[in-house]
């Protein structure tokens, strides 16, 4: 009887340690992010690839199932602004940049649950074909809870963290070969009510 109890206790402890540590490790990643960083944006060279290590594969399964491999699409994800502060739905941000080197691109905001953030405007993203541009061809996208003139992605009414995913469809050859050298938009933190 004592042995059975001991075995059971050992199994429960091992289960919590083993499965718990696996889930904890995987939860750390921001969706489609990875080891390659450009400012606050990160990506993984192995997304969708058969060469992906088991941890990358599991992380992508959780935060980016059915993502394409990088010759077709590069997915960059940001969980912080340029200063390294986590993106929060109550704060306002400006994404400032020029078109990245791809046939088509878009920036989409996702809640902490990896799904689109509910908002009355039903507006979740802007793409290279849909956004308003500055006179010099560059763009500014406002992300935050309060309405802004121009390109505005609302972050809804619930308090929480969020992430941004930048998709580069059919990236240029140089970009696909070395995503770390792509020039990407800045994410400037603005007002953040305490």
């Amino acid at each position, binding site marked *: 009887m004592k042995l059975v109890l*001991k075995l059971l206790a*050992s*199994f429960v*402890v*091992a*289960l919590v*340690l*083993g*499965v718990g*540590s*696996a*889930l904890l490790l*995987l939860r750390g990643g921001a*969706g*489609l992010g990875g080891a390659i960083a450009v400012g606050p944006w990160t990506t993984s060279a192995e997304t*969708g*690839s*058969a060469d*992906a290590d*088991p*941890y990358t*594969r*599991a992380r*992508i*399964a*959780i*935060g*980016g*199932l*059915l*993502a*394409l*491999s990088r*010759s*077709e699409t590069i997915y960059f994800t940001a969980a912080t602004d340029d200063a390294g502060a986590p993106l929060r739905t109550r704060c306002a941000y400006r994404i400032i940049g020029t078109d990245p080197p791809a*046939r*088509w691109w*878009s920036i*989409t905001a*996702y809640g902490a649950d*990896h*799904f*689109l*953030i*509910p*908002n009355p405007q*039903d507006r*979740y*993203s802007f*793409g290279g*074909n*849909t956004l308003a541009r500055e006179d010099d061809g560059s763009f500014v996208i406002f992300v935050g809870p309060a309405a802004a003139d121009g390109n505005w992605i609302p972050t809804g009414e619930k308090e929480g963290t969020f992430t941004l*995913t930048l*998709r580069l*469809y*059919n990236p240029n050859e140089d970009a696909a070969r070395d995503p770390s050298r792509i020039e990407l938009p800045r994410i400037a933190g603005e007002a953040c009510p305490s």
Partner: protein
Amino acid sequence: MKTWPIWIAGTIVLAAVLHILTIFALPYGIMDRAMAGIAAQAGGVNKAVYPDPVTAASRGIVRPSPDLLYTACVYDIGARPLRITSPVPDTYWSLSMFASNTDNFFVVNDRQTKAGRIEIILATDDTAKSGNDTPVVIAPSSRGIILFRSLIASDAARPEVDALRRQSRCEPL
């Protein structure tokens, strides 16, 4: 003799095994759930489903793009190969295939197709290769997901792209 060091060592080894099992099994489990969801919507495997554009209410697959229209089939080619046919619109479009462990083993986009149409056979081996020119893709697993992405470049383009993607088919040979 004290036995507690053996118990601790045994627990740690078991924890490590369970850790590795979790990491390896998770992608299969998540794919299984996604396949069950798509098959339920399509009314079975080897059938296409044409979901509405994604919104915040879309909770099926994580991190969907609201700028794309997705069309999906669960493939099960254990018994028979599958014929995939689709018109190709004049916008970004891709046909991608995912194995049961989530790997993206095949992708083709609109610029890599000819004459605005595509036809592909998906099989577990190359015995499906017949006399004609239809390309055969060999899948690393007998079950998985086929996903079509169609870019909605503008609201004006939506009806035409939507009508075209509803002609995408997955049919057993």
